[in-house]
């Protein structure tokens, strides 16, 4: 091959560089009966990485509920799918791009969006909505403004250009993310239910095609990088950054959908992390087949590339397609119309082996099963984290009005307008509830009257205090958000962001969070259809709060009935749900300068279920004109946000203590209604605690029993001003 490359035996340094332990490497040799070639070592390294093999998480993920009548495609494929009605499948998934975004915020976030979109259109679905969940360090951390601007610009840059609306998301700030930000991107698409495409390499002799951008040296070892914790040096190491090209992805999207409209493909998979290697191995594994790739045929961007690089490159905007024999010419014709590279790089074989050749010489010859089924699985040791300290009481604020304004100005609570106005959230003319307008976004299901509601949520502080309760509350909150707009929660995708699984405490958090999520999903009949795990989110031994992000999807029969969270004037405000607020993990606690402490808000899953059912029944009866769940900042903040959005005042009695006003609980919704009596009667019949809070009207928010009588304008100034101040100083 003309290029010098390392030969076996490989030294410890090389193996470490490939993320393989001595025991794992011994297993590779045992499976092969020989030492791996250099490209084979690369292939094992990525296929056995945490990112591809889920080696620390797999034993736990099994405990998540994944079935239900609504599920069309559960976990295991490129994305999950549920039945959207009227012959449609709704396809969605969420994925992390945390480490790349910390190194290069614009490109890291952009390629995160590109990757999750490919997961969705690989299934034959046209993407119609994007969400993003972001976690940054302290607002005053010197890196935060740069990271926020770069990530937001990158998400917008990609989604806007490809023409998929970014309709919602979530942003929180916490010191635990100072050295490890989280960038989780969610994409949702729709496909005819009977035309979903899977990543299978079936049919011996079928040609394998490479479609899309040329391969360069981008992000080589990205997948192993994503599985390693940061150390002091890694900012300097700076691996070649993957650059996103949304324009090419738009062409790829249209070309794929053109191809998928005809009977040409047997299977298809995007080249995501670990590129050509993982896409081909996973497709062969699912079909129980083998695959031969002629690497010298891969379209290359740079000169002098070698098999190792071609196999590991993470160049973006590429797809691998298995074509039905006889349809090759049509495939080439359809793709070429979009000006993209398309070429046959291999065939499906019956050998069960992954074989790569280079100028006729075999450079990789490995059983697919060794790469996929034999990948290590660890049930890593766990040890419970010590229980968090609890605050007995916090001082009452000297002025409730001032405390409320201060809370509204906390970047985690403040308006995210600065973010979502940089995202095109209206392209495709399907956005019924825009970001900032409701508790969940609503987009229409094309060609029907139906609507799809979406929300992403997770409070890492709650998860840090108790990962079981925190995980369950994330599911409950996302379900409540979806129910607030009037949609029935259907299913979730998750993105499980944790620190190093090699620390028993983290592993315990992970296992607990899974159990909490599973319990909530069961209680709410919302199974998990897809997801992603991101481990090793820690720097120099300091980990992030456990952050199992939940993306909930719900459905409305009639999208035009969706309601927002802006209070109309002259209505009653009614509180539904009796969850008991607490100071633990609350924004109020931290605002007092207190360290993170318990006790956590209540978790009562049957009560959450009853609340959701009540909300939907009341919505169906026309009793809900606007609804907003109380989350960060508590009840007073929830009422104030509805006032700001509706540009109307209110006079309410929320109680006069800091706990009643600012304590947090997940499981409380404020509803604006024209018929409070009827709503209260329904609540009583359903066994859901409810009470009248007051009325909307005028131009100030008055909290009975306190000094707070604040002009809505003042509330707005505090709430709208905080986020730009973080980023723009």
């Amino acid at each position, binding site marked *: 091959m003309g290029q010098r490359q390392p030969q076996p035996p490989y030294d410890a340094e090389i193996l470490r560089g490939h993320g393989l332990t001595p025991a794992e490497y011994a297993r590779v040799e045992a499976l092969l009966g020989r030492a791996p070639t250099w490209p084979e070592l690369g292939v094992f390294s990525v296929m056995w990485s945490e990112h591809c093999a889920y080696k620390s998480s797999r034993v736990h993920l099994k405990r998540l509920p994944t079935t239900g009548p609504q599920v069309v495609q559960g976990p295991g494929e490129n994305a999950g799918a549920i039945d959207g009605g009227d012959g449609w499948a709704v396809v969605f998934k969420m994925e992390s791009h945390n480490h790349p975004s910390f190194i*290069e915020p614009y490109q890291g976030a952009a390629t995160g969006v590109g990757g999750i979109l490919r997961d969705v259109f690989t299934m034959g679905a046209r993407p119609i909505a994007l969400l993003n969940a972001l976690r940054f360090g302290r607002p005053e951390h010197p890196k935060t403004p740069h990271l926020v601007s770069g990530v937001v610009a990158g998400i917008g840059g990609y989604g806007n250009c490809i023409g998929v609306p970014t309709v919602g998301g979530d942003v929180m700030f916490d010191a635990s993310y100072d050295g490890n930000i989280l960038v989780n991107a969610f994409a949702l698409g729709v496909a005819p239910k009977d035309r979903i495409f899977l990543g299978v390499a079936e049919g011996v002799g079928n040609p394998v095609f490479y479609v899309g951008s040329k391969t360069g*040296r981008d992000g080589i070892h990205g997948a192993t990088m994503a599985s390693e914790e940061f150390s002091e040096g890694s900012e300097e190491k*700076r691996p070649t*950054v993957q650059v996103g090209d949304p324009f*090419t992805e738009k062409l790829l999207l249209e070309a794929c959908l053109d191809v998928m409209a005809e009977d040409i493909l047997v299977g298809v998979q995007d080249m995501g992390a670990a590129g050509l290697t993982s896409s081909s191995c996973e497709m062969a594994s699912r079909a129980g087949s083998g695959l031969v790739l002629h690497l010298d045929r891969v379209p290359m961007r740079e000169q002098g590339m070698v098999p190792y690089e071609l196999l590991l490159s993470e160049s973006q905007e590429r797809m691998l397609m298995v074509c039905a024999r006889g349809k090759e010419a049509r495939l080439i014709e359809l793709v070429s119309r979009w000006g993209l590279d398309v070429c046959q790089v291999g065939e499906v074989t019956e050998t069960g082996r992954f074989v790569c050749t280079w100028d006729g010489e075999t450079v990789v010859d490995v059983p697919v099963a060794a790469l996929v089924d034999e990948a290590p699985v660890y049930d890593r040791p766990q040890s419970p984290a010590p229980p968090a300290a609890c605050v007995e009481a916090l001082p009452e604020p000297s002025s409730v009005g001032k405390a409320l304004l201060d809370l509204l100005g906390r970047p985690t609570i403040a308006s995210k307008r600065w973010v979502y106005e940089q995202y095109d959230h209206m392209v495709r003319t399907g956005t019924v509830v825009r970001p900032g307008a409701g508790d969940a976004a609503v987009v229409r299901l094309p060609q029907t009257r139906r609507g799809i509601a979406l929300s992403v949520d997770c409070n890492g502080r709650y998860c840090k205090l108790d990962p079981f309760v925190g995980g369950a509350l994330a599911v409950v909150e996302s379900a409540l958000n979806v129910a607030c707009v009037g949609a029935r929660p259907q299913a979730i995708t998750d993105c499980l962001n944790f620190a190093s699984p090699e620390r028993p405490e983290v592993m315990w958090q992970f296992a607990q969070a899974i159990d909490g999520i599973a319990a909530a999903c069961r209680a709410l009949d919302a199974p998990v259809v897809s997801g992603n795990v991101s481990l090793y989110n820690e720097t120099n031994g300091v980990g992030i709060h456990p952050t199992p992000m939940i993306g909930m999807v719900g459905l409305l029969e009639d999208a035009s009935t969706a309601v927002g969270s802006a209070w109309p004037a002259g209505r009653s405000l009614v509180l539904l749900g009796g969850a008991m607020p607490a100071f633990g993990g609350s924004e109020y606690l931290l605002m007092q300068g207190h360290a993170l402490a318990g006790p956590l808000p209540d978790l009562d899953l049957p009560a959450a279920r009853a609340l959701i059912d009540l909300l939907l029944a009341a919505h169906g009866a026309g009793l809900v004109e606007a609804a907003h769940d109380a989350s960060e900042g508590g009840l007073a903040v929830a009422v104030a946000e509805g006032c700001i959005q509706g540009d109307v005042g209110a006079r309410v009695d929320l109680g006069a203590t800091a706990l009643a006003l600012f304590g947090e609980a997940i499981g409380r919704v404020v509803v604006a209604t024209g018929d409070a009596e009827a709503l209260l009667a329904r609540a009583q019949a359903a066994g859901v605690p409810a009470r009248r809070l007051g009325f909307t009207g005028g131009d100030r928010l008055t909290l009975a029993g306190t000094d707070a009588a604040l002009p809505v304008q003042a509330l707005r100034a505090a709430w709208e001003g905080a986020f730009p101040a973080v980023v723009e100083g």
Partner: protein
Amino acid sequence: MKGKVTVRLKAGVLDVEGKAIEGALAKLGFNGVGAVRVGKVFEVELAETDPAAAKAALTAMAKGLLANPVMETFEVALEPG
């Protein structure tokens, strides 16, 4: 004094814009055009009159703001005159 900072993408980094321009030039009938790479020039007016100090300032600006060290390289120069 007037200085100039030229910022270019590092060699291995995909130049998406350059690629699109290559395609457009070919379609417009320009033959024999190979790779196109796009960079930026920042022309900065400086109060500084000492050339060495001016160059040092430009380098600091490039490192601190104008270039992204993860993906880009830069070059500083002083304008004659």
